[in-house]
């Protein structure tokens, strides 16, 4: 075997090594991208149940309110400690303003396509309305108003979160197909 032939064979070996390495690198990049997209899809699938979980928590709190919060001290005890509670009318006005603002915010976020994790904070606000009515001794008269407000706000929020997640998940699935086919990151 001549010296020149040996050099050519070495060069071919080096080139094929480089090609194999770059193919391995591209394959690794593809796998990483796909894994990242899969993680994101999984996160979004978990996130899409957030509204329903918040609704379930609200229903549990509503049930406790229906039973008159048996584990809480009597309203008289709390009012003796904290002072006179606001009147039922003031609480109702606050509930109305809150419901209106929450719905407008939710619809605005829906139209802007913003990912916002607000459902559980709404459960907190609604629970505090139940508590205010309870300590103001007017829960029985206003129970259905808070319940209706909760179902409406959390229903719209659940729909907003679910529709946002559905859209992003279908986009991610398209991205996964693109990455599998080309091995390159998605265009954006």
């Amino acid at each position, binding site marked *: 075997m001549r010296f020149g032939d040996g050099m050519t064979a070495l060069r071919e070996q080096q080139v094929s090594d480089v090609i194999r390495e770059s193919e391995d690198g591209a394959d690794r990049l593809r796998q990483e991208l796909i894994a990242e997209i899969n993680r994101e899809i999984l996160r979004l699938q978990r996130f899409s149940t957030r509204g329903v979980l918040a609704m379930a928590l609200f229903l549990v709190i509503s049930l406790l309110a229906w039973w008159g919060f048996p584990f809480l001290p009597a309203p008289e005890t709390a009012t003796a400690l904290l002072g006179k509670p606001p009147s039922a*009318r003031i609480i109702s006005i606050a509930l109305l303003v809150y*419901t209106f603002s929450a*719905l407008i915010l*939710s619809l605005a976020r829906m139209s802007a396509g913003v990912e916002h994790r607000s459902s559980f904070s709404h459960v907190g606000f609604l629970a505090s309305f139940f508590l205010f009515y309870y300590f103001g001794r007017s829960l029985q*008269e206003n129970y259905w*108003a808070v319940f209706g*407000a909760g179902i409406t706000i959390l*229903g719209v929020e659940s*729909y907003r979160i679910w529709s946002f997640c559905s859209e992003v998940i279908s986009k991610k699935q398209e991205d996964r197909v693109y990455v599998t086919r080309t091995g390159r990151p998605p265009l954006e």
Partner: protein
Amino acid sequence: MFATLAGKALVPVGLAVTGFMVVCCLILYSVIRDDLHRSEVVHATNLADTILKSTRYAMHKSDRETLATIIRNVGEQKGVDHVRIFNKKGSVTFSANPGEINRQVDKNAEGCIVCHKGPVPVNNLGTMQQARTFKNPEGLDVIAITAPIYNDPDCSSAACHVHSQSQKVLGTLDIGLSRAEHDRSLSMLRLQMIVFSAMSLLLTIGGVTALLRRNVFLPLQRLRNYVESSSQKNKLPEPPPRLPHDLDIIAARYYQAKMDAAVQKQYSEKMDAL
């Protein structure tokens, strides 16, 4: 349903409008019910005051017959469930129902406990605290007012039957009024609110649906039919007329792109033939 354009456009709006209207109606109903209850209490308190003032002279004169007649006549009035006067010891001395006279009342009973829950009875109560609501033995809703009969200076100094000056309350007047009219008004109000809400909702959601269908969904359907039919036929049809401006631009661009592609194709075929 949720995946379609109509579903995406109508579900959140329908849910938000319906829910908000229901919440508004519930709060409004609660406020009106509260107002009606207050005015009912004020009416019952005024009636109790009127009875006390009407019987005052008879009490001064210790005219038991006139007093009993007044109480009986008031008790016969339509909408009055019961009228009775208790003495200091808690026994009924006058009543529209003769069977109740001389009957002792339990101080722990509803309406009495408000003043008698402590070792010393409360002498002054607010108007709302004097009222109580309950169901009578016939199962009808009743609102009752317990008005104290105070020992005024002319009572303690009267020649006929002097009460000691230290005695603050001489007895109580208990008057109960039927809530049938109040309940009827509330059920009418409830019915009117349900009908009004249902009509408003139908109008709002129906209006939004009709406008969206007329201005968005039908033109979109025509555009979709045009795109689908143009891909099946050999000859490219003209874009559908009278589309909204935005959709018209899309249809025109699509038509132009298809025309350019057809010209390009014809040119390539000619070149291949040469």
